[in-house]
């Protein structure tokens, strides 16, 4: 999904200040659009039980169980 230029300008100003060139904004927009696509693919693979600490728990179990 393409992010409108005005929206990108607003987001960049808020997160990064006023110093960004239009070219830098375009490049960031491209990255964010790519992430939005990845996000969609990841969400479709998740089970309702998945939670952000799942990986840390898996490592903890592996350490405990030797």
């Amino acid at each position, binding site marked *: 999904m393409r992010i409108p230029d005005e929206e990108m300008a607003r987001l960049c100003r808020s997160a990064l200040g006023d110093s960004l060139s239009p070219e830098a904004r375009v490049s960031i927009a491209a990255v964010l659009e790519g992430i939005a696509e*990845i996000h969609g693919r990841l969400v479709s693979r998740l*089970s309702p039980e998945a939670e952000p600490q799942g990986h840390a728990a*898996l490592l903890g179990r592996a*350490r405990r169980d*030797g």
Partner: protein
Amino acid sequence: MTADPTHLPAAEIARRVRRGELSAASAAEAFLARAHRLGPKLNTWIRLDPEGARRAARAVDEAVAAKKDPGPLAGVPVGIKDLVDMAGLPTTAGSRIDRDRIAKEDATLVRRLRGAGAVILGKLNLHEYAYGPTGHNIHYGDMKNPWDPSRVTGGSSGGSGNAVATGQAAFAIGSDTGGSIRIPASLCGVVGHKPTFGLVSKAGCVPLSWSLDTVGPLARTAEDCALAMSVLAGHDPADPCSMDGKPLRFLEGLGEPLKGLRIGHARRYYADSDPEVAEAVERLAEALAEAGARVEEVEIPDQEPAKDATAIVLMCEAAAYHEKNIRDRPGDYDPRVVERLRPGLLVRAAEYLQAQRFRGEWAARVMREAFGRADFLLAASTPIPAPPIAEDTVTLRGGKQAVRGLLTSLTRMWNFFGGPAVSFPAGFSRGGLPIGAQLMGAPFSDARLLAVLHQLERMGVAETKRAPFEDERR
């Protein structure tokens, strides 16, 4: 007996120093002389610490003379990646921003090395803030590959890679968030061990991505990595990610045979590699089978989503750490580094969290589907040998590809998984550049992983050769 200690593996230096056959002082002087001579040509070091090294070497020699235990790393000259704190010295992290940030105390891992009798030579160069896989650095000089100085070392631990490959340090400490130990190990032709997440303390190390960062050794042999890990590994309350548990036996199991071991050949994982790289890994798979291991093809599930999710996590965590400086001092970064840091500040929280949610489920699948069938996975470390410093793209299998993405393509996912991996030399390209292969394990299988590599070294199929850069042989 070899007269020049810079030709000896770390374990042999420690053995000789402990027996009184080699003084720590003479070993330190030999390595320092080499570091002074070669370091500036390869941009290996950000700062050498000859006085600190000499002081440490004297203490070891005095302990040996007094018949006290000088420690398992007695007199071993070591280099430290300059994102690890050493009290009284700046920790630059390869940046201009932190050029004058003096560390108040030693990082836990430095304390452990010193306590074991290691002689720390100085701080090694790296890609700025460890955020890059090539070893470019506009502040301290691009790190150069000792097999061909017009080519990259790989990064981010490029100084660690070229130091070990040229005998400027017996082993070196690197960090690995997406391949930063294994990539330079692969391109410089040495052994690099990325430990299981949480096994080695990161207290006192500059972070790149808290949930992906690991710290470990680059060395000439599996035994040297095992020796280093026997000192480095262990719980540290100062590191919130540090895992407590039974100590791993790194040195005791090195002699275990390969017979009966299950090796999963992750052929499709590295299928797009340079044909010479793929052939080298095929030869290793054959050698493992001949030695009695059961080798079968194993698939790592959901590789593309895992790579993508890793990128999101890394980008967000790196941007969070750098937020203030990205806003206040963007001009003090390498433009290529700040360009990659910025987008992380605009990623939505839900996108980061879904990536972390995916991580736990994916890692559990890898445990079931890959490690249900194999003890270790075999693949290439990097799909290409060292590319030229001046090039951002290379031609691979007829297509033009970005160097940065290629170099991390076979390593980054394992940081997301969290298990250990070791990159090791698997021969040379026809152009004379090292090729790296990789063994990957389930969490906390680090000791056995290094034991497998030790057997491959004994078979003569995985050997670190000293880079002939300005050496007597050239």
